[in-house]
């Protein structure tokens, strides 16, 4: 394999950074044009110069195209999806948001659901496992969630985000009702937390503010989604 082919092979691999739709529509043409461009260089140094220009262009344009693709997805109206994939995305997406939020709010070892109370004379290794276990469990769930969420690709990015928040909101409310996090959300006292600049006046700690913000955002998105669903059904009726 000569230098020319190696650069083109690298270029073809780099095209995988682009959204699938773009690759299918323009991937072959892009590669063809890259081959023509590379063909203009005759010397080794020239090939290297043109090749590096091609690769840099490929990477920069990939960022632009991916950002545009994400924007287009977010701007799309909610897509009709089968109940199964929507539920899968919702359940799994909720995990991502929930886990990230919980990992932030509860540092490893302080989540009582996972770490059971221990006697004073418990061996050190058990204490250590207790402290590590939440992070391990979070990481496993996060990995599974990520893998499974990819399968629910029929949903638009916007749908995934809103469904995730919606389910996380429901899950979190249930969580609070069971008494594990009542203090961190609704209490005006922060005995262990450090009050944030906004929270000083209210007596809130950073963790309470973060959880409150997540809830408010989630609530806003769910309401927005419900309104959109209502609008969609109304349009269908009118038609």
């Amino acid at each position, binding site marked *: 394999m000569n230098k020319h082919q190696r650069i083109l092979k690298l270029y073809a691999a780099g095209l995988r950074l682009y959204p699938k739709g773009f690759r299918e529509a*323009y991937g072959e*043409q892009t590669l063809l044009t890259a081959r023509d461009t590379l063909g203009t260089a005759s010397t080794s140094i020239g090939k290297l110069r043109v090749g590096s220009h*091609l690769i840099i262009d*490929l990477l*920069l344009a990939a960022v632009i195209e991916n950002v545009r693709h994400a924007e287009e997805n977010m701007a799309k109206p909610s897509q009709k999806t089968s109940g199964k994939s929507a539920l899968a995305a919702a359940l799994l997406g909720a995990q991502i948001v929930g886990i990230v939020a919980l990992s932030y709010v509860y540092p490893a070892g302080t989540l009582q659901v996972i770490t059971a109370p221990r006697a004073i004379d418990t061996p050190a290794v058990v204490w250590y496992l207790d402290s590590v276990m939440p992070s391990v469990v979070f990481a496993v769930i996060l990995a599974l969630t990520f893998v499974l969420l990819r399968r629910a690709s029929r949903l638009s990015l916007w749908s995934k985000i809103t469904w995730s928040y919606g389910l996380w909101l429901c899950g979190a409310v249930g969580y609070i009702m069971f008494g594990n996090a009542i203090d961190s959300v609704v209490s005006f006292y922060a005995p262990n937390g450090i009050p944030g600049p906004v929270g000083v006046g209210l007596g809130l700690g950073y963790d309470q503010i973060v959880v409150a913000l997540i809830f408010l955002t989630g609530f806003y998105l769910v309401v927005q989604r419900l309104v959109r669903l209502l609008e969609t059904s109304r349009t269908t009726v009118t038609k």
Partner: protein
Amino acid sequence: MKRSIELLPQVSFSILMALSLKPRHGYEIIQQVDTDSMSKIRLGPASLYVTLKKLIDSDLIEEVDIDGNERRRYYQLTDKGWQRLHTEMGYYTNIAEISKSRLVKKWSHS
């Protein structure tokens, strides 16, 4: 009432200019843009197709079949593309004339 339009980015404008002569495929567009801009704009293939996609989505250019070359895709301006190019050209011509008159005025004073 006059509608204000957002000017096209320079690369998009250059591509429309390159397609104003005849339908072209990707590599021909790159070469024409290079010539038109006196090598000031050097388009890479990826940037080119990302921009072409945007122009197609905006309905300013379209694909066209050219006999005898099934592998390469050719692009040409749409009616909307011609109109847009005309509007942009009008703007740039006006700007160039204003700038020129101001420069002449400055030279004549100095």
